[in-house]
């Protein structure tokens, strides 16, 4: 049975790809992921804003109250060097590459043009096999048009692509007026893969404190239906690879994604909840299903239930919505 797949030009021994999470920040976990059969890993994200914020914060608090009172002209030792740039992250890539044989995909998160290019180049130099761009952008300005928002994504991709040779994936939100058009544009701009979809952490209200507080909610099994639909719709229409993410918890979820046309699937919440060992559980489940359903390879499965292939393409369109409502009754 051949579980291998090709994702953004990289040969993966399986379509299971632990996505960016605190787990991929840990070298030990990364090794276990490989041991349990992961095809590639996506490292935790390097947050451009976080780096800037940390620099400003450290500077501010180390300088606070200094040079004002004769006995305490400073409050901290004078340390010559801090790793406040991406050094720590780059070192992590290097170590991950040394430890793993599977592809290591780095992840870069930001909103401004600022650090993208430099960071991307350094990530490539550190040995990453691929780069996933996570454009974390929430438009709040009513004057900003959808086209302008799209341009932000496209400009960043263009800038990064012109500076690095490694394959570049774009992690997208589902919130585009015409997702296929956006996917086409990114595809045309040279994106090597699209990752569908990222989950913005949503703000929540604390009703006791009457404050807005971010809340991290992990995805649930079967929460992959949105990506399933859009991968199925996009399959065959773009050159770029596709990875399904969000709500992939079980072998069934992975199988469905591949059948929709995904080249790889990202696992995140399930590993945080159940542990890295879950990679092999899912893989075993896949094998059983493939065996039972006479599939010999992942390649054979890929896209067989995409919109292009299914008997009822309209199922992915509005009619499907009506059907769903009726079935609920």
């Amino acid at each position, binding site marked *: 049975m051949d579980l291998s797949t090709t994702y953004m030009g990289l040969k993966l021994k399986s379509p299971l790809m632990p996505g960016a999470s605190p787990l991929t920040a840990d070298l030990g976990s990364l090794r276990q992921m490989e041991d349990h059969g992961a095809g590639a890993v996506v490292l935790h994200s390097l947050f451009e804003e976080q780096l800037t914020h940390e620099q400003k914060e450290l500077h501010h608090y180390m300088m*606070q109250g200094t040079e004002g*009172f004769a006995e305490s002209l400073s409050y*901290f*030792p004078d340390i010559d060097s801090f790793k406040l*740039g991406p050094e720590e992250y780059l070192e992590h890539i290097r170590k991950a590459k040394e430890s793993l044989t599977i592809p290591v995909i780095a992840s870069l998160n930001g909103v401004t043009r600022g650090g993208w290019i430099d960071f991307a180049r350094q990530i490539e130099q550190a040995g990453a096999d691929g780069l996933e761009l996570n454009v974390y952008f929430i438009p709040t300005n009513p004057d900003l048009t959808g086209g302008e928002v799209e341009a932000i994504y496209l400009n960043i991709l263009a800038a990064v692509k012109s500076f690095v040779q490694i394959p570049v994936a774009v992690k997208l939100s589902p919130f585009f007026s015409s997702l296929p058009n956006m996917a086409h544009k990114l595809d045309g701009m040279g994106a090597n893969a699209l990752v569908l979809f990222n989950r913005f952490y949503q703000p929540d209200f604390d009703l006791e*404190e009457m404050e807005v507080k971010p809340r991290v909610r992990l995805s649930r099994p079967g929460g992959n239906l949105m990506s399933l639909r859009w991968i199925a719709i996009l399959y065959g229409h773009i050159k770029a690879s596709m990875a399904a993410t969000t709500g992939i918890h079980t072998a069934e979820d992975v199988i469905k994604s591949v059948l929709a046309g995904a080249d790889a699937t990202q696992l995140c919440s399930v590993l945080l909840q159940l542990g890295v060992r879950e990679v092999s559980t899912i893989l075993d489940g896949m094998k059983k299903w493939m065996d039972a359903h006479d599939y010999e390879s992942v390649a054979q499965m890929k896209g067989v239930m995409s919109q292009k292939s299914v008997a009822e393409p309209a199922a992915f369109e509005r009619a499907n919505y009506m059907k769903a409502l009726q079935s609920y009754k």
Partner: protein
Amino acid sequence: MARKMVTIDGNEAAAYVAYRLSEVVAIYPITPSSPMGEHSDAWGAVNKKNLWGTVPHVCEMQSEGGAAGAVHGALQTGALTTTFTASQGLLLMIPNMYKIAGELTPTVFHVTARTLATHALSIFGDHGDVMAVRQTGWAMLAAGSVQEVMDFALISNAATLRSRVPVVHFFDGFRTSHEVMKIEALSEDDMRAMIDDELVRAHRARALSPDRPVLRGTAQNPDVFFQARETCNKYYDAAPAIFQAEMDKFAKIVGRQYHLFDYVGAPDAERVVVVMGSGAEVAREAIEHMVAKGQKVGAVIVRLFRPFSVKHFVQALPKTVKGIAVLDRTKEPGAIGEPLYQDIIAALEESMGEGSCPLSSMPKVVGGRYGLSSKEFTPAMVKAVLDNLSAASPKNHFTVGINDDVTHLSLDYDAGVDTEADDVVRCLFYGLGSDGTVGANKNSIKIIGEDTDNWAQGYFVYDSKKAGSVTVSHLRFGPRPIHSSYLISRAKFIGCHNWTFLEKVDMLTNALPGAVFLLNSPFDQSEVWDKLPRRVQEQIIEKKLKFYAIDAIKVAGEAGMGQRINTVMQTCFFAISGVLPRDKAIEHIKAAIKKTYGAKGDKIVQMNYAAVDSTLASLHEIKVPAKATSTIELPPVVSPEAPEYVRNVTAKMIAGEGDSLPVSAFPVDGTFDTATSQWEKRNIAIEIPVWDSSICIQCGKCSIACPHAAIRMKAYDKAELAGAPATFKSVAYKGKEFGPDKVFTLQVAPEDCTGCGVCVEVCPVKNKTDVSKKAINMEPQLPLRETERENYKFFLGLPDNDRTVIDLTTVKGSQLCRPLFEYSGACAGCGETPYVKLLTQLFGDRAIIGNATGCSSIYGGNLPTTPYAKDANGRGPAWCNSLFEDNAEFGMGYRLTLDKFAQYSRELLQKMADQVGETLVSEILNADQTNEQALAAQRARVAELKKKLTQINSPDAMNLLSLADHLVKKSVWILGGDGWAYDIGYGGLDHVLASGRNVNILVLDTEVYSNTGGQMSKSTPRGAVAKFAQAGKPMPKKNLALIAMSYGYVYVATVALGANDSQVVRAFQEAESYDGPSLIIAYAHCIAHGINMKTGFSHQKAAVESGHFPLLRYNPRLMEEGKNPLKLDSRPARIPISDYAYSETRYKMLTKSQPEAAAKLIELAQRDADNRWKFYEQMAELNYSHASENGVNKG
């Protein structure tokens, strides 16, 4: 290795050599020597090697006494060892110094000479400390400038190895230790050439070793001790020549020639001064000036004070000398004269007697004191001293630099004497502590010193307050080495970096005619002139100043730098002063920015670059009109309503004119009135809290949290509102204890608030219609200042709440009590002061406080004003600071007296029962004093007693009258920080706890030496970065509470206001009421934690919720009831340690400097917390039912 020019301060110059020539460095922080230890520790942390290619061991000890012991031990086992200290620290080393010298052990202690605490503490410089060790048998070598510090550090090391006489290498605290100067750095080749490795090995060979065992440190008896003590004589006889030989060797290698006594001045001088330390630099400048004018004067600069070489001294004197004035920077009351004076007299007498003196006759010798506690010492004063020698009867035992209008010992001097050359550029910069002015000026000095041919000097004067502090930078540069070791009073450039200073500081009085004045102005260039106070306008016109202005806050803000205007003002300075071509200057500024901030990331560098680039476009020269037109007058320093002393004396200190006060202005014994901080209206808050009476629930949380007692609350009769200002707010009081229909006001002290915002953070009430607002909200101070000033005045006039009906066990109750600790100089948002304030609210009218040296003694007792206050009856805390190390014992001394006097007064009362009346006596003797009503009743009885006693004429009556107040229970409080309680004072603290005496010990636990700038203490948590723990503290925080609990009869509480304020109030009440020793360990957030001080209370909460700082009360009284005395007041950890820790820079920075170490230490810290909690839980579960049967020993 070639030598290079460096621009560094005296401390770094000393440490530079000391570190390289040491194998072991034992350190302990004390101002102003701390930076030497800090440099050494920092170098050790990055594995910087010494001269022999190995990294010295740098070890912080628990006190200077401990450091000296460790040094002694390291020396005895053969290591090249050093330490750094000053003042009280040096005193603590004395016992070991005798030993080290007695054993002829080579070592050098580098000492920043600092004032000893007498009538007051002072962190500043004089020779009081070093003079207190002149009898220990150590050589004493005095450096007078930063260059000499580096040179003498090497010479003293070479000489001690050769002579075997240990050396105190000293230089003046602050004036030299903190003066930044361009000097030639010695190379390691120089050091190798000076240090004889054979002597190093000889030292090692004398060391203790079980491989060649010897015994040192015997006890000797009358038969032999004396003879044995005399065996060292030949070493002391030989030492001066050895020092001179090393100086000569140094001259050959390096080129700078020093002598044991250097002479400067006319070869045919008739009048000379003898002086040592930085004063010698001043003397040199004055003498050169006077000699150039044809005067026959000179100065003998004493380098080697001990062993004192009579021969070398007299040889340094010109044969023509007729009069000598000896200047001592110390005071020895009761002595014939100060030490150097006595030595000079003795030296002359001896050499005259022996016939070895080159002088033909005994000159007239007078002695005098100068420069105590860094009092300015100027060429004008040197001239006055020399002029005194010309008098027919020169004044002896004089003082210079002050106006002694009591004993009339001071010499008059002409402050107009100017000895500085015109080509020396002198600049003054007035900055706000937080704006980065000093840092930028240090950079400017480096740029000028290292990138031009100029010589450069920088000296910085700081504030006595930690919030809103004013700094003054004194910068000189010029074509020749600078010897002017005194402040600038005639400046060619004055920079005012904060507009509000124009109303507070008369800075232009220091401007030379035609000088440049650069002002950071929030106003547009067209408005600047009209906004200036009249006095400033007049000075600008009168002195024909060139006037420039820039809105630096705006430029810095736009560059993302907030209030840090340093780079902007620095760029202006270079642009206007023309010291470098503009392009070149900007290039150097940017290079300095890169060097300074590069370690903290490119973003900071880029922000500063942006500020530099946008500065010049915003810098404008302001056209100066011919006439002053302003109607803005400078406000009075203090209110005309202030007491006379405050108006006449304190106000001068506040205005920065304390130097002008005469001796008669001061109390003879250091005793000052309390409650004077109320007169110092600092107006440093940009925003102040404003009360929303409509939604306030009157909980008191804002008030209890306010670090400066600038939020007050009172409940009172509505009738009191008559005459209230129009904007005065009040609402119905939500409480019944004062009777029905009372009204309530929460009032802010607008001019005393520091604007920290803690009150808003802790307010639990949200506005239902606008959740961004609370029941107290920050608003700009300026528009509110006038109205709120009136409101606050009216509020203070309302009667204080009746303590006898307030529930003092609640937060709200405590806050209805008047704070007797107010408006201190603590940091904005301080985590310590709310505890101190609470103490005064609960017990202030009968509290006597012993305060360990540290933050709490500085904000508690640093002049000009005193924050401890009095209630309407004139009662309030009595406060004294003894030392750092002895505070527990000091406080116990209070208790001993109070107990004795209570007993004695009761004895007298019984004895006088017939005269006083049996009933009254019985009532007094049997009075309950456990609550406020009872205390009030007892006070009334004692008042009646005193009245009766005044009518009885007998010794007993008079004695009882003087003691009667002791019949009312007093509350002894022993306050200090963790540096005291966990480290230097721990031995005493332990003893006092063990004593069983009724004292209350409040440890303000910031987990670091806050006052001296953030050095590690044993309270510092594992994984936190501090000075001396650059790689994160490897060991866990000492569990002082557990140690104290182990006695079984000590009341112990750990408290954190931000986590549980009710528990704090309960703990204070329980501790105070416990008739035995009580220990309260209060978690105090601190600026040294690297946090937003506004959110300090949330950090306290996180410390508790993570299990880092569990709350507990251990109440031995419960054992009497058969109950477990331990009660855990916090719950098991709800968040991991890392969640709490990584919200604070002190922990987080380690993840950015040493991520792997950080990960390991935080894991261990989590384990510490887990284990501690498990242990406490089990301890709290123990069955104590047997305790009631056996009774409890309270000591």
